[in-house]
């Protein structure tokens, strides 16, 4: 195949009995060399795409994810305080050295205009700190040591132990806080990890909802996809090719088109409600609410993801010889029994591929829930998108949520690769 094997003359035995090529290199070395060359050649073909993806996809994602644990405000903008407070044991008020360091940092900070960023960072956890720090920083030039008395005289917030404990905690440049928030936990004033008050708990609920709705959608896809795939695989080709169009057309149609079609069908003045009213099933004032809620998301996403279930199932079912079922029947198995114990086990690879594909795609969905999900039918992605447009803190929370979602997706992707193999993925 490669030039190495084609151009080199056949091996011959050298005097000491070892096999060598014509130029005297031992055959094993030459073979290894030629293998290495073939491997390099294969790799060079993949390299352009691999390099492209690493630079413009993998690295940006990894970089973004690391920002979810970064917490540099206090350490960067209060460097002297960070050093001084390390010796404080966290009980009572810190001593003069810490206050002096804080005063020094505030002088620098108000010159560089960085003090506001620290103030904003701490203000997120102790409201009122912003005005305390900004106010003191404005007057710092007129104050004199001893700093402890001077600062406390300026604003009694400086005598708050909780404030100092927070500063000490936030000197760490890595923080798990956004991950705690993602699971509805937070630090209390003593630095212990506690559950957030119930009225602030959103994210655990959202993760659970995303998971169960995705599971439901996957189940619906199995229920609807399995019989159809079976029919397509067992019909003569000329019929199944025609029916396949009914599966492939939705697959090829724009996601937005399909979502808008469901808006048209399901809204209260939409086609389905109109037909039901016309048929006398419901009264004109009793129209169903089928969209801008969970029903809308589930119906539209099942429709959109169904081809991803049918196609892998179909490609596996097509390879199952029909004689197997006939054999089972001839040996006395009932139709149901021969289907359940002979046919179904053989379809498991296709089923696994379909289930994992649909589930992986579903848990990261954004567009369809955003358009037809209302408030109750949205997924974690929609919350992430919303948080990304917010303040720095919200952005970091969004990044933590994204990381968790990504890890979940990657686990299922790994499973998919393990059970099915990415190289067996096929469309159409």
């Amino acid at each position, binding site marked *: 195949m490669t030039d190495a094997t*084609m151009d080199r003359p056949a091996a011959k035995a050298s005097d000491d009995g070892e096999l060598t090529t014509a130029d005297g290199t031992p055959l094993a070395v030459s073979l290894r060399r030629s293998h290495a060359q073939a491997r390099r050649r294969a790799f060079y073909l993949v390299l352009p795409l*691999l390099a492209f993806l690493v630079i*413009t996809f993998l690295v940006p994602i990894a*970089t973004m994810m690391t920002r979810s644990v970064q917490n540099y405000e206090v350490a960067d903008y209060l460097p002297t305080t960070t050093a001084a407070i390390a010796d404080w044991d966290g009980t009572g008020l810190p001593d003069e050295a810490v206050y002096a360091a804080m005063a020094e940092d505030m002088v620098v900070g108000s010159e560089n205009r960085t003090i506001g960023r620290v103030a904003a960072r701490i203000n997120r956890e102790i409201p009122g700190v912003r005005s305390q720090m900004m106010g003191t920083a404005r007057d710092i030039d007129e104050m004199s040591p001893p700093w402890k008395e001077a600062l406390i005289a300026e604003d009694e917030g400086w005598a708050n132990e909780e404030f100092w404990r927070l500063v000490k905690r936030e000197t760490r440049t890595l923080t798990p806080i956004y991950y705690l928030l993602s699971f509805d936990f937070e630090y209390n004033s003593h630095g212990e990890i506690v559950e957030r008050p119930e009225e602030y708990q959103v994210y655990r609920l959202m993760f659970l909802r995303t998971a169960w709705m995705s599971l439901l959608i996957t189940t619906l896809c199995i229920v609807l996809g399995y019989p159809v795939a079976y029919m397509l695989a067992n019909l003569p080709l000329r019929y199944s090719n025609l029916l396949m*169009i009914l599966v492939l057309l939705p697959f090829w149609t724009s996601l*937005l088109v399909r979502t808008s079609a469901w808006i048209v069908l399901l809204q209260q003045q939409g086609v389905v409600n109109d037909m039901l009213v016309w048929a006398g099933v419901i009264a004109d004032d009793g129209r169903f609410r089928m969209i801008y809620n969970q029903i809308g998301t589930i119906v539209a996403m099942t429709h959109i993801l169904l081809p991803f279930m049918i196609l892998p199932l179909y490609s596996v079912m097509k390879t199952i010889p029909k004689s197997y079922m006939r054999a089972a029947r001839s040996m006395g198995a009932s139709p149901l029994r021969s289907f359940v114990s002979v046919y179904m086990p053989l379809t498991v690879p296709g089923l696994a591929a379909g289930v994992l594909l649909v589930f992986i795609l579903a848990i990261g969905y954004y567009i369809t829930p955003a358009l037809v999900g209302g408030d109750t039918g949205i997924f974690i992605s929609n919350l992430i998108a919303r948080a990304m447009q917010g303040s720095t803190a919200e952005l970091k929370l969004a990044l933590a949520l994204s990381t968790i979602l*990504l890890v979940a997706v990657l686990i299922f992707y790994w499973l998919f690769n393990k059970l099915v193999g990415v190289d067996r993925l096929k469309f*159409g």
Partner: protein
Amino acid sequence: MAIPNYAGPGERTWIWSYRVICALIFLFLIFPILVIIPLSFNAEPYFTFTPEMMNLNPEGYSLRWYDALFGSSEWMTSIRNSFIISISSTLIATTLGTLAALGLSRRDMPARNFITALLISPMIVPLIITAAALFSFYARLNLANTFFSIIMAHVVLGTPFVVITVTAALSSFDEQLIRASRSMGAGKFTTFFQVILPLLLPGVIAGGLFAFITSLDEVVVVLFLAGPEQTPITVRMFSGLREEISPTILALASVLVAMSICLLATMELIRRRGERLRGLTPG
């Protein structure tokens, strides 16, 4: 699905109800897509069938939403933008993806499974994460809101499809043909262009079409990356669906459905040609 002649009455009933169930599922798949086409000819600004339409009264139908679509410079600019983005990204994605697939299908490819998993990953990572990461990446390079960044992002999203389809086409490729061609004195390039490429072409074109439709249909990344200058149809459609819903969207949707039908037909032709070239004929 012929009914076997040994089937009893119970089994016959079951097979018939099974056919009805499948028909309903096919209806569920296709009805939503077809229903928007007649609705796009609605004379009224509603998203439902008016009594005039139900009675097939010609006055219930009009082309006004198509006028609104093709007569609007905003929509036309967006359509142009979409095509600029999709065509450029498809060309790049197809080239990179085909090369990679050629490498991946070689016997000697090191770490094949891992690298394939990496190359397919853009298809798997939730789009919102990709979008946010690419936005902050290109914003730092001062390239956000440019065609360049959008095209590069769409290359990323399109390549998995090319890799998958071309690898699939290569899996049924008979390597003896290369040896045969070389043994008859063809050089490497002649072999590639005269033997490998024609057999591979169906897979390459199919992959390219997938990349094209993926780019044309992509919303989330462009929502982050596109400025007003680059707004493609999907972004305009997305905000249209969120804010004031006008049947103009249905007109556009119908045009897109017509385009999907054309693409599907092309795919089918290519598939048949590929089967013929390999000596397989649909039975």
